[in-house]
């Protein structure tokens, strides 16, 4: 069965510092992996995806994520956090050949000025 784990309910980071939001997954076959962000009173927005190819993927707003097959992880990163990055972040996975997306429970990122 597919599953996604986001082990941290909340991550606090100072503005200007690097940030990491963790995600691990369990899926049969090669996974399709995604990050979405949810700002208050706004819908979920796509950040980035890994389908195949380079393990380091770059997305919107300066975010990037690294696919690590051996550790079954897809951590979200940004070199320098902004206060405006404060939001709820969701990792999602989908197995090839299926259309069902499994989302994690979300990690609240708080960037402190």
């Amino acid at each position, binding site marked *: 069965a597919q599953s996604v784990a986001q082990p941290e309910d909340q991550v606090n980071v100072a503005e200007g510092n690097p940030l990491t939001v963790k995600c691990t997954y369990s899926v049969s076959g090669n996974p399709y992996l995604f990050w979405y962000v949810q700002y208050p009173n706004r*819908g979920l927005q796509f950040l980035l995806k890994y389908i195949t190819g380079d393990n380091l993927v770059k997305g919107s707003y300066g975010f990037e994520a690294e696919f690590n097959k051996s550790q079954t992880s897809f951590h979200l990163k940004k070199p320098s956090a902004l206060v405006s990055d404060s939001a709820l972040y969701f990792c999602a996975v989908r197995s090839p050949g299926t259309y069902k997306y499994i989302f994690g429970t979300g990690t609240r990122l708080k960037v402190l000025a």
Partner: protein
Amino acid sequence: GAGVSQTPSNKVTEKGKYVELRCDPISGHTALYWYRQSLGQGPEFLIYFQGTGAADDSGLPNDRFFAVRPEGSVSTLKIQRTERGDSAVYLCASSLKAVAGDYEQYFGPGTRLTVT
């Protein structure tokens, strides 16, 4: 251009009543998804449409839930005999046909359903 829209934005209903939630996807998007998001949880997959047909309805919790997309555009999620446990935010998302590379989903703002 216009994004995914959902109506109503809020719906309060009494236990046992029937409700319909509407989703208008982005024009040209043939793939449409319904999710349910409870407080403190991530979106939970309910059903996926490719065109007019439900390609995967494995996430519908029971036979009180049903969804249609008769013309391959607008979709309606229907819940019969609502229960208090059905209270949640119901999200709709659309995407281009799910071929290689076209997997980004665009989400609507959701319908907050409260069953009293």
